[in-house]
């Protein structure tokens, strides 16, 4: 039992890490005047500082999807091992997926504006995670290479699907395309490419939590897998055209790294999958050699849904709705706002985790 908990710790810490990067990105969204003229679907960067501030957040969505896939696989295995019937275990994840879609359409969508308006008719990252969790239940019992193959097929055909012609005037065609393939007003996080990352997360979970059963193995093999994906991503980027959406001027430039995120290009997904795996390797190594360095991150990583839903609501209400420094500052203001929010969210996450740990309430367990 202790060994299992330790594995959870580094996963929690990694989730906490990407949660904090996400807070930094969202602090920028609310405090940084860059966003007055910034189009995330066509990002242009006025300085290196602004590029870093934005690009750091690119790790978050792949990180959350990969972790969601990994945790669904792990929880499912553990439930079944405990004696829960497979169908019942899957039903729990269908409910959880639907709950996430509902949270997206109600709380999350409205919280961006500080609850100034109720805006349920569009989706986002939480809904994409929710739908991916539901889809995962259909393949969670298959062997790892089947799931890996499905992910590969999706990632390979997605660049062609993006090019599909459809009638943009048709609400249903647009909604379907945005639900699964492309990004737009209705949904910036189309399910297919993000579900592929969740599938890859579920594949990695089998190795992290079962096959590579000691720390050294986990580190070395994760390092190799992550490194290979990063290299393959670089090859895709360097060869160009297929798997790329944005052009770049030269290797190492902003444009080279910041390929399209909405929807994610093949390069984007391979690149960040590689980095997520490398980070997980790094976090489990840190957990072994210097656990005190990253322990605090676990506070956030244990309640990621609560953390996500609350930090946007606080920023939405106090910064946007009360118009407190809303997009008035630059990088410094963003960092100060981020630091203040981090302190607040650490306390809130710790408080909620204590409640969640002893609660048997269905809704609280879902959050």
């Amino acid at each position, binding site marked *: 039992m202790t060994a299992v908990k330790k594995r959870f710790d580094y996963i929690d810490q990694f989730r906490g890490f990407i949660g904090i990067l996400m807070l930094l990105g969202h602090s920028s969204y609310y405090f940084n*005047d860059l966003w*007055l*003229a*910034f*189009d995330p679907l*066509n*990002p*242009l*960067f*006025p*300085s*290196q500082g602004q*590029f*870093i501030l934005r*690009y*750091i957040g690119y790790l978050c969505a792949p990180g959350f999807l990969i972790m969601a896939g990994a945790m669904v696989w792990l929880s499912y295995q553990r439930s079944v091992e405990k004696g829960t019937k497979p169908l019942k275990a899957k039903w729990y994840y269908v409910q959880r997926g639907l709950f996430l879609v509902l949270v997206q359409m109600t709380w999350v969508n409205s919280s961006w504006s500080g609850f100034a308006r109720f805006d349920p008719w569009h989706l986002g990252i939480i809904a994409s995670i929710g739908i991916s969790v539901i889809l995962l239940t259909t393949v969670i019992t298959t062997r790892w290479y089947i799931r890996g193959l499905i992910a590969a097929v999706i990632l390979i055909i997605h660049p062609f699907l993006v090019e599909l012609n459809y009638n943009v005037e048709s609400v249903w065609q647009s909604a379907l395309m945005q639900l699964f393939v492309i990004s737009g007003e209705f949904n910036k996080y189309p399910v297919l490419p993000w579900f592929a990352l969740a599938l890859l997360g579920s594949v990695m979970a089998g190795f992290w939590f079962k096959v590579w059963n000691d720390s*050294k193995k986990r*580190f070395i093999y994760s*390092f190799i897998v992550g490194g290979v994906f990063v290299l393959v991503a670089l090859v895709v980027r360097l060869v*160009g055209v297929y798997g790329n959406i*944005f*052009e*770049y*001027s*030269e290797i*190492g*430039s*902003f*444009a*080279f*790294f*910041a390929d399209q995120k909405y929807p994610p290009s093949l390069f984007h997904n391979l690149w960040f999958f590689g*980095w997520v795996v*490398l980070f997980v390797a*790094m976090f489990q*190594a*840190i957990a*072994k*050699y210097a656990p005190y360095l990253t322990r605090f991150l676990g506070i956030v990583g244990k309640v990621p849904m609560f953390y996500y839903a609350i930090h946007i609501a606080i920023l939405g209400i106090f910064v946007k709705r009360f118009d407190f420094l809303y*997009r008035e500052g630059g990088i410094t203001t963003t960092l100060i706002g981020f630091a203040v929010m981090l302190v607040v969210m650490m306390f809130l996450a710790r408080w909620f985790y204590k409640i969640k740990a002893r609660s048997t309430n269905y809704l609280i367990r879902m959050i």
Partner: protein
Amino acid sequence: MNDKAQICFFVLILLFAAGCTTRQSEPILTENNTIYYTPKDSMQVKVSVELGRKFLKATRQPIFTGQHFPVAKDETVHAWVDLDMPDELSNAEQVFHIQWVGTHGDDLYTKEFNLRMDDTASVLYSSIFTEGREQGNYNLRIYYFRELVAEKHFYLVDSAKYADSISENVGTTLSFGEKYSRKKQQLLNPDTIFHKGPGKWVNTVVRFRNEPPFEGDQVKFKVEWLAPNGDVAYDKWIKLNRGEDIDLLRSSISIDDKDRDTGLYTVNLYWFDQRIAQNQFRLKPQKKMEWLHVGHIPITFSIGKSRKSSSPLSIQAKATAGKGEKIYASIDLSNARINPNATFEIQWLNPEGIVFFSKKKKLSEQKNPAKVLGSISLNSKRDTGKYSLRLVHKGKIIAQKSFNVVNK
């Protein structure tokens, strides 16, 4: 230890992955006030940015360039971005964005350009209308791929303020004088106060510090003279051909006309529909002429169809206007103390005291140096009232006599 080293390796790779700028982080300010992020190496695209209010249709050359533009209907700010793309660049698509940023840092409009090295276009162009926009500080940003490479601030101002700033920018001066010397190519005795008078003119000469560009082989200006009541007293299009001296841009109006009102006159110089120079002068009533006493000079008038058949008019006599009739004047200089080579001017004044006809005469060229003759027609169009004849020498009156004209 091995693992710790690998952790350090990861951190370094992460720093690399944060992306590198291909430009210097500290920008320079170019001569035309563009904030320019110079490339770190010569293989990078160079850009230069120009903003203008208009452009020449033939050459698409920007005009009224600068950083101040008027907020008004149909007014536009045009942006031209000259690209200098090194030959070493591959023929891959080169992506540029021109972003117009509002006074509050908000995106007004972003235009994307995708060029290839073999494209002939080397200038990016974009524009925005100014009507309805608030006055203040705006910004134009140029991105090469995802990276800011240049930006230029500009100001939308009230259209009146803009006119002043563009005049200052072109550096046009407009001066006045009664006479212009073609030989010296300059105004003689430049002034801004003039008196009406017979045969008098006000000339204006325009000088440029920065010569406006030609459109094709020609450049056109409009000179507009505004009367004190704001009405256009006179306007004229002046076309100058390439090779002609643009500094010789001149115009003039007569100020001996009885219809010319006194008061403050304004002269505007327009290039396209933009005023690029303005100046004013004050027109005052004709100065009263002084007398020069050179002895007794009798003047006699007679009326008739010819001098020989004409009948003398007494001092109080009233001449009646008849068809083909004339008033003849005879001026006797026999008792005058004057130089025999002197020049005189005979001036005929209408009932309003305005000289309506004048003629210069040199004594030495007269058949009889002691007698100067003059005449005016007397027809039904001539106004009734008190007319005068005066003899002027060296700008002063040496003799004057009046007669009345009445209707038949």
